[in-house]
């Protein structure tokens, strides 16, 4: 039913007007002749109105004549009539078509070119390069091949490492990633000199000419690898930035003393403990001795934090334990004193070693001083470390 009506709209139908005595007879005759007729209703002034197809109207004439009903077309409805009416309004149809085509044409032109992602390279440079390759406002979208364009744009602008061209509607977006250009500064001409005195253990010149051999004794400031040298018989001096590995044995020494007879402290075993509350810089002793109870003592402080639900109190509880000590002279053996002095001297010598040095060997020289009580030990450490240091050659 509904489909029939839609179909009727497409093929067109007529609203007609029946006038006569025998409208019912006319309707029945139409039914019998297979003429489609629908939506019959009576208007206010008593005439009967119905709808029929174009084809049906043509067949209706003999039927109307037989039943004595006069048929008149009131309205023409449906697509064919609309089209024929449009056909008469040529200007309107042309305008509509022109509008649609111009909309399509305007929509297929790139109107804007946008550059994104550039920091160092100027937008105008990229835009100009793109324009030379054919991407500029006003070109046809279909002419642009995004992949090809991005490749050739990346070649044309050498500062860019990647270019992506994307056409979004009437806007072309050029997305770029810039190259990070690393500027290599020319290295200054100069020599590699010794930063310390030592005996060369390893000398390798990567640029320049090595001036010393393994086993050579070098002074501080001596040229190890030269940056200004001549090759073979060529008289011309070549200047380079000398570079290479120069390692040498370097000696570090330190001495320490230790006395054989000395005052030693020993805990007697007597202790006293006092509990102290500390408010800022004030102290209140709540238990135990107020003052240290021994003339000679060692003290051990233990801080006990007062905590209440993880909140620290402004008061600190401190426990002080005093240990009584006594002093007495003791005599140690030569070996003990010597070992102590050696350990100290060695530690002092090690402290002088730079972090990149490797310790090879250590030796000790022991000397008992004239008072016959003090032992002096000198520790000598041999270490291998790089001593090469670049010194620029100042030219005129």
């Amino acid at each position, binding site marked *: 039913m509904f489909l029939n009506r839609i179909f009727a709209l497409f093929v067109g139908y007529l609203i007609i007007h029946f006038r006569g005595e025998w409208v019912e007879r006319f*309707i029945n005759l139409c039914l019998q002749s297979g003429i489609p007729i*629908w939506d019959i*209703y009576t208007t206010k002034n008593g005439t009967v109105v119905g709808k029929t197809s174009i084809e049906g109207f043509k067949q209706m004439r003999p039927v109307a004549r037989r039943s004595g009903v006069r048929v008149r077309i009131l309205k023409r409805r449906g697509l064919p009539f609309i089209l024929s009416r449009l056909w008469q309004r040529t200007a309107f149809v042309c305008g509509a078509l022109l509008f649609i085509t111009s909309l399509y044409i305007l929509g297929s032109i790139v109107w804007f070119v946008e550059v994104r992602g550039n920091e160092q390279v100027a937008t105008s440079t990229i835009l100009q390069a793109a324009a030379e390759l054919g991407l500029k406002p006003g070109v046809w979208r279909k002419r642009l091949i995004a992949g090809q364009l991005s490749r050739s744009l990346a070649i044309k602008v050498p500062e860019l490492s990647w270019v992506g061209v994307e056409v979004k509607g009437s806007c072309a977006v050029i997305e770029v990633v810039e190259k990070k250009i690393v500027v290599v500064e020319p290295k200054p001409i100069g020599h590699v000199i010794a930063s310390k005195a030592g005996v060369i253990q390893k000398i390798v010149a990567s640029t320049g000419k090595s001036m010393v051999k393994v086993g050579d004794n070098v002074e501080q400031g001596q040229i190890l690898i030269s940056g200004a040298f001549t090759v073979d018989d060529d008289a011309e001096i070549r200047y380079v930035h000398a570079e290479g590995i120069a390692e040498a044995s370097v000696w570090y020494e330190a001495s320490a003393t230790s006395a054989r007879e000395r005052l030693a402290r020993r805990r007697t075993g007597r202790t006293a403990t006092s509990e102290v509350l500390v408010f800022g810089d004030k102290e209140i002793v709540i238990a135990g001795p107020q003052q240290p109870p021994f003339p000679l003592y060692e003290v051990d402080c233990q801080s006990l934090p007062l905590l209440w639900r993880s909140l620290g109190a402004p008061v600190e509880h401190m426990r002080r334990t005093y240990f009584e000590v006594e002093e007495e002279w003791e005599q140690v053996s030569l070996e003990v004193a010597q070992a102590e002095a050696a350990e100290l001297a060695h530690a002092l010598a090690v402290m002088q070693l730079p972090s990149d040095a490797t310790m090879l060997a250590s030796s000790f020289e022991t000397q008992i001083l004239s008072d016959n009580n003090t032992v002096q030990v000198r520790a000598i450490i041999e270490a291998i470390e790089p001593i090469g240091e670049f010194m620029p050659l100042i030219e005129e």
Partner: protein
Amino acid sequence: MARRQRLQTGVRKLMTDVLELPKDLVLNLPRITMVGNIQLTIENHRGVILYSDRRIRVAVSRGEFIIEGQKLTLRSILPDAIIIDGTITGISYIG
């Protein structure tokens, strides 16, 4: 002739009663369907006898229907069915 037809009708009626077949198809009787009081469909009709916006008479196989109402329209007329729209106030059957 009339006797024979009556006999035939009797047999058919019996068949529909026994076999529970739809009576409108077997006995060639009209079938009326109403949607509330706004639409009415008459199947198996024999044509329109009278049409006005207050009263429509439709011929059926043995008699006629009189449909009364307001703003009655013949929404669709097909050889086997009539659809009437409008406000229906009364239907009567005259055999």
